[in-house]
């Protein structure tokens, strides 16, 4: 096929206009030829024979009349074994390999093979003559902890493919042909372990979508008990700067009960990516005892990398998540931060001179955000296995004001909202998720009715606290003061969690149920007190005991001893 060639007619920031003669597609990838470099870009608008392309690299040095080569392919990623534990930029360029090639800096126009050139131990599943559909496994290779399914490419037309030949059990290169399949017209297709998929298209090779009804345990008490997330669900974490969004996401990435975690660092600090890069390989996954990195993929397009690739990075990440879902795994995607992605859209929209919406964000912002989160989901695959993609995104609202368009558009489509509050982070109450403003539509690990009681006490307690600021402690009744103290205690010993303490950092669901039951008992009991000093002293001491208890490993003798101490302490004061 003849390559379609265009000529540059204009440059404005990362937007390049190209005059094209011939057929091109919207969203197809093209390369601007600058000297000996080729700069990747995507067609985002076609008008009167002029294609507007967003270039994923810095555009300095492009001149009018430069050649542009079009590929007639949409922006795609390569899928195959070897993705896990790797670090990519937004365009699926492996960063450590790029460093070997280019040194300290990200030289533009260098594109490396995303899938490592490696041999894998292949075990076939299908036999010659079997009929197969897109997404069906042809065989497996062992990748780290998992059996990685080698599948029929998702993009093939579903028209009665049969297996003509399949490789025998043995070691093959990742790009070697391992199977030949033919459709009913006899057209044959050679398949290797790698194929590509356009990132902006959802992978839908499954039987049906299921409702997200299984709690995804994060071992963060306030989330699992009060503001749960579900496997296949979505949640968002908006918060002003310094409220601890990234620390919270790292905790989720470390402790969540999922098979694969994909971290998309989108337009945020490079230092934070470096922390994951250097820390995760050292940490062990408590579920498997292997390095955490083995279940992690990092996609990073940090804030100083070219803006257009920022948009691509979230799609690259979710496509990889969907790919691993096709193997029956539960996958969690953590995107930090979706606001930066929205800002990238805004920059491009401005250059295209589109009519701006609220705060100059483009009018299609909401539908793009909705479509992105809708790619999450729990599904039943064609072979009956259940798998899920859970998506969590942070939002960085301007000025910490949740009324802004990105937060509002996100809130419409997610199932749980973990709003972070500056007040709480300033008071060093971590995680700084606001206990009352936040909400979740999913089922948690603790009995819902008991949780509702706790929540009511929190709300009541905060009202009393407001009132006390006006009338003082003296003007508050003893009963109200007890409720206030109960709420404060629930906040201090249950919502707050010390992520730097080895034991407290990860609280197992059984432990949450156990401890919440005791707390529930305290919250609902009536106590006998002398005066307010007595009330304060009682709750202070009880709180201290609880905090000590949090530092002890669950199920040990010391744990039981401390538990008895707590029970004895508060029951002595209780009124029957």
């Amino acid at each position, binding site marked *: 096929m003849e390559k379609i060639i265009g000529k540059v007619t*204009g440059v404005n920031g990362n937007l390049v206009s190209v005059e094209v003669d011939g057929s091109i597609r919207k969203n197809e990838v093209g390369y601007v030829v600058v000297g000996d470099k080729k700069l990747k870009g995507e067609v985002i608008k076609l008008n009167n024979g002029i294609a507007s392309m967003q270039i994923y690299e810095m555009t300095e040095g492009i001149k009018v009349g430069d050649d542009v080569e079009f590929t007639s392919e949409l922006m795609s990623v390569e899928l195959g074994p070897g993705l896990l534990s790797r670090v990519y930029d937004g365009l699926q360029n492996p960063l450590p390999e790029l460093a070997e090639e280019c040194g300290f800096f990200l030289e533009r126009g260098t594109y490396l093979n995303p899938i490592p050139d490696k041999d894998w131990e292949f075990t076939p599943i299908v036999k010659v003559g079997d009929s197969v559909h897109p997404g069906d496994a042809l065989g497996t290779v062992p990748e780290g902890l998992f059996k990685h399914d080698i599948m029929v490419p998702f993009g093939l037309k579903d028209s009665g493919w049969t297996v003509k030949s399949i490789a025998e059990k043995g070691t093959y290169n990742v790009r070697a042909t391992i199977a030949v399949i033919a459709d009913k017209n006899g057209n044959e297709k050679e398949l290797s372990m790698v194929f590509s998929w356009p990132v902006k298209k959802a992978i839908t090779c499954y039987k049906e979508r299921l409702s997200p009804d299984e709690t995804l345990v994060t071992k963060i008490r306030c989330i699992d008990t009060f503001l749960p997330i579900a496997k296949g669900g979505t949640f968002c974490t908006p918060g002003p700067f*310094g409220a601890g969004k990234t620390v919270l996401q790292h905790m989720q990435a470390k402790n969540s009960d999922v098979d694969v975690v994909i971290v998309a660092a989108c337009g945020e600090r490079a230092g934070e990516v470096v922390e994951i*890069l250097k820390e995760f390989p050292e940490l062990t996954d408590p579920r498997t005892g292997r390095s955490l990195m083995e279940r992690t993929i990092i996609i990073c397009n940090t804030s100083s990398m070219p*803006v257009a690739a920022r948009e691509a990075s979230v799609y690259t990440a979710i496509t990889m998540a969907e790919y691993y879902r096709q193997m029956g795994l539960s996958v969690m995607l953590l995107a930090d931060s979706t606001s930066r992605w929205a800002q990238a859209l805004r920059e491009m929209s401005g250059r295209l001179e589109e009519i701006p919406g609220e705060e100059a964000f483009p009018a299609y912002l909401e539908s793009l955000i909705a479509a992105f989160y809708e790619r999450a989901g729990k599904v039943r695959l064609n072979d009956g296995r259940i798998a899920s993609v859970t998506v969590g995104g942070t939002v960085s609202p301007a000025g910490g004001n949740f009324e802004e368009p990105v937060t509002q558009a996100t809130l419409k489509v997610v199932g749980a909202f973990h709003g972070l509050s500056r007040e709480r982070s300033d008071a060093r109450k971590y995680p700084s998720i606001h206990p009352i403003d936040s909400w979740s539509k999913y089922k948690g690990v603790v009995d819902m009715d008991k949780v509702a009681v706790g929540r009511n006490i929190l709300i009541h307690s905060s009202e009393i606290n407001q009132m006390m600021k006006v009338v003082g402690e003296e003007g508050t009744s003893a009963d109200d003061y007890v409720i206030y103290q109960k709420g404060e205690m629930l906040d201090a010993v249950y919502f707050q969690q010390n992520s730097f303490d080895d034991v407290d950092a990860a609280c197992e669901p059984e432990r949450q149920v156990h401890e919440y039951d005791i707390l529930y008992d305290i919250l609902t009991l009536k106590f006998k007190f002398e005066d307010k000093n007595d009330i304060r002293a009682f709750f202070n001491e009880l709180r201290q005991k609880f905090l000590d208890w949090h530092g002890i490993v669950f199920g040990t003798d010391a744990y039981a001893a401390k538990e008895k101490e707590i029970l004895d302490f508060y029951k002595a004061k209780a009124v029957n």
Partner: protein
Amino acid sequence: MQKVYTKIDSIIGNVITVRAEGVKYGDLALVGDSYANIIKLDNDKVSLQVFAGGQGVSTTDPVRFLGKPMMVSFSDHLLGRVFNGAGVPRDNGPALTENMIPIGGPSVNPAKRVIPKKMIRTGIPMIDVFNTLVESQKLPIFSISGEPYNQLLARIALQAEVDVIVLGGMGLKYDDYLFFRDTLEKGGAMGHTVMFVHTAADPTVECTLVPDMALAVAERFALDGKRVLVLLTDMTNFADSMKETAITMEQVPANRGYPGDLYSCLASRYEKAVDFDGAGSLTILGVTTMPGDDVTHPVPDNTGYITEGQYYLKNGHIEPFGSLSRLKQNVNGDTRNDHRALMDGMIKLYSSYKESLEKKSMGFSMSAWDEKLLKYGELFETKLMDLAVNISLEDALDLGWKILAECFEPNETGLKTSLIEERWPKALS
């Protein structure tokens, strides 16, 4: 061959357009005597932003395209010199033309960064003890106009233990420029300092070039294994200059007139801060004045999302609350065994002092404990918070213990018993 174009189509603000062919986006040109760079290409219509401003440019001025992007000379000869935003000497010294390097280069591969673990000592207790500055950190000083932020920067420049200092001044008052120059010369720091200074009277476009020039030079020093500290003052002026250009170019404004790419523009500068794996480091300390003391203003707000913490400068000292060095945990565990505990303990007591102060101002009676706190707060503010204090970290920690001992009994401090036994000043207890 250099072709000269003599027909300028339009001059709007600092942006001129001329019809020319074969020129590259981002390249430099000479319009009359002033430099300009290409900011937009549309067929043969070339938009250029003139560094010296559009004022007085004639439609028949010659435009020469130089065929290369904006560059700055890099060598050890830079040390001790002062330049303006376009790289022209402003100290009557010779112009430097050897070893030209491009500005605004590509970003560092995250895989070649290391986790920052080295402290920068500044001799200022509020920084060293409470919010330690770490090599490769990017930290802004949030402040309002009128606060002594430039004095603070100058003191840090004099006292910080680094190899090279690069000062980028944007929209500086001329007196402030003289102040920096004289202070650094007197303090003997000029020998390892490079200054890129844009004063308030200079053309706006040069203001937007200052950070790129300063950071390009600093990056090279860092690659040579040097520990470099870049001081940028004031980044709000930089953002305002960008706003001016964006509006001249008829870009759709996002928040309060600032361009939609404000975050990316600030980030690409601040993210130059780096600790290279196998070379030196680049640390950025910037000043961001908050118009109307409003931290939700787009410039401080976007800055806060980019940087690793912030120092609040209020009433002449660095506020203990609100100020935050996100990287301090990486270093303050290895300085001295009492550093972390003393830092937390003293801040907690200081916050109690604030509460007592509030109670006092509302007319409540003061208990003995309140009186102790009031004494403590006063000592804390005069002996540690005052910006004129210049002592080493160890002395500052010892001083902290002394202040505690003057005001409290050991068990009132909330510090661990083992530490108190080790560090509590004996004569006073």
